[in-house]
């Protein structure tokens, strides 16, 4: 079966892999919206969505009731509703761009997924082969380049809506994204300074970052969050701003801008913005996990290879070292970490109130940016000292 797959035309292989990833990302983004509602409800002492159920599913003894209480069917009901309800297009909008904006929102969200590795397996020689749609060497640069295109959809949506609240929202979005893009990029430079030691081939690949966090020894196995906590903090804060999450959801700010850039949108077009936001969050959390949380390594100082070897010594089962099992295991570990980061996003959302717009700008330009530059200089000197010793 594997031979058949690997003998296919690379284009078809890529198509199949791409479809598989989209089929995972799309429901995952939907599930995140449900998780958001559930987490917010639990934090406020509410049960959250728990009523909708497919009629015949209610007869399944335990599982049906459990899924109902978990609100899983609300997710399907919401999806179906968005698909079938009327699509209002206000009369005063620029129709072409109005329709184009949500589609444009999805594109960068899904394109960035292609360069994010989400797992690894070991070939015969014990080399880790990352599972990634396009294992390009520019890696993180591609993520930054494409994901910041996402703001164009917000600008387009706000402008095409031809009304003042969406316009204000989109202006805020563009200002905010530009402000935080800088500190975000600067905060990860130390990571790549560290892994691109003198004499090694230069790379921006995310898989390489994980490889460096799976090296043996105390310093080798350290996740970069311990090595560079300030970088991680700046990256995380910028990530909140880049994905327009609370406390930085300036573009939406429903209390002062009605709905921000998507005020005029409804039905499926609105839900596309929604899914795009969650996809950005998923990709952002994935990048954070790869850079600072050790990617698919189960624990700090416990790389995947050692973990698999330990599992193998435990039961001695042969399937444990099979590439397929290792691949699935690494994907599960990686997704688990990503979901923990997503939970952190939600946790912060229901804890910290929204900043005022001037506070966002002040934090971005006067606090985070100098901090990121100072951090970069400090680590550049420290790494130069360590690596040339």
């Amino acid at each position, binding site marked *: 079966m594997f031979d058949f797959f690997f003998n296919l035309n690379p284009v078809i292989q890529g198509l199949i892999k791409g479809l598989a990833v989209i089929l995972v990302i799309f429901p995952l983004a939907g599930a995140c919206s449900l998780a958001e509602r559930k*987490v917010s409800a*639990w*934090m*406020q*002492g*509410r*049960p959250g969505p728990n009523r909708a159920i497919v009629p015949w599913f209610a007869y399944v003894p335990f599982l049906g009731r459990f899924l109902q209480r978990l609100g899983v069917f609300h997710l399907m009901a919401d999806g179906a509703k968005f698909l079938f309800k009327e699509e209002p297009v206000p009369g005063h909008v620029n129709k072409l761009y109005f329709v184009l904006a949500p589609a444009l929102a999805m594109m960068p969200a899904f394109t960035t997924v292609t360069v994010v590795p989400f797992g690894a397996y070991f070939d015969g020689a014990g080399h880790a082969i990352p599972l990634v749609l396009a294992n390009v060497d520019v890696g993180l640069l591609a993520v930054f380049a494409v994901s910041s295109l996402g703001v164009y959809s917000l600008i387009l949506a706000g402008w095409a809506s031809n009304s003042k609240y969406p316009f204000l929202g989109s202006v805020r979005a563009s200002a905010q994204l530009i402000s935080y893009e800088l500190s975000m990029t600067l905060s990860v430079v130390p990571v790549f300074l560290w892994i691109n030691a003198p004499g090694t081939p230069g790379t921006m690949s995310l898989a390489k970052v994980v490889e460096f966090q799976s090296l043996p020894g105390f310093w080798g196995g350290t996740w970069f969050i311990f090595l560079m906590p300030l970088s991680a903090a700046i990256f995380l804060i910028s990530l909140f701003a880049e994905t327009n999450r609370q406390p930085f959801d300036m573009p939406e700010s429903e209390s002062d801008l009605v709905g921000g850039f998507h005020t005029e949108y409804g039905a499926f077009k609105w839900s596309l913005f929604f899914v795009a936001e969650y996809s950005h969050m998923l990709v952002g959390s994935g990048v954070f996990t790869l850079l600072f949380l050790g990617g698919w390594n189960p624990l700090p100082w416990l790389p995947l290879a050692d973990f698999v070897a330990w599992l193998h010594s435990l039961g001695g089962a042969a399937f444990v070292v099979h590439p397929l099992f290792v691949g699935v295991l690494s994907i599960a570990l990686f997704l688990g970490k990503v979901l923990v980061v997503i939970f952190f996003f939600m*946790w*912060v959302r*229901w*804890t*910290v109130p929204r900043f005022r717009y001037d506070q966002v700008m002040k934090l971005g330009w006067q606090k985070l940016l100098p901090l990121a530059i100072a951090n970069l200089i400090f680590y550049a000197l420290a790494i130069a000292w360590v690596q040339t010793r």
Partner: protein
Amino acid sequence: MAIIPLERKPLSLAERTYLPAILSGLKTTFARLLRPIETMEYPEQRPAIPPGYRGVPTLVKDPNGREKCVSCQLCEFVCPPKAIRITPGEIPADAPTAQVEKAPQAFEIDMLRCIYCGLCQEVCPEEAIFLQNQYSMSGYTRAEMVNHKDRLYELGGTLPDPHLKWDKKKAAAEHGNTH
């Protein structure tokens, strides 16, 4: 009023980053996450009604099954939104409770007008009308929202009556003592 000058200390570096405050906030919300859910899931779970609750006004009967209302119309007159409409009627002379003389022929409370103030209950000299525990009234038409006499007695049921005033009056009259 003395003016007390408060000394405001400048924020420390840790406080200026807001991070300690945010972390303690995160701790609070996480503790909330683990707490039991406080929402009452309404149609399945009903709230406990405290005594003295003013629900839907109802008419009650005494333990002997006599309708207590004597259609004096005080409630009709006191009702601020004019929700009550009473048509007084006679009690036939051969009835066992003929000494009461009057009973409502029709008794309507328009629940679309009722403001649940409880004045009817307060003013009633016969303790015949009570605002009881029912708190949810719904109907598909305006007509459905008008409670007629039968419905009012059905909702009210029988309440204990420590006085049994009309029985005492009858007994007194039979002993030749009308007052």
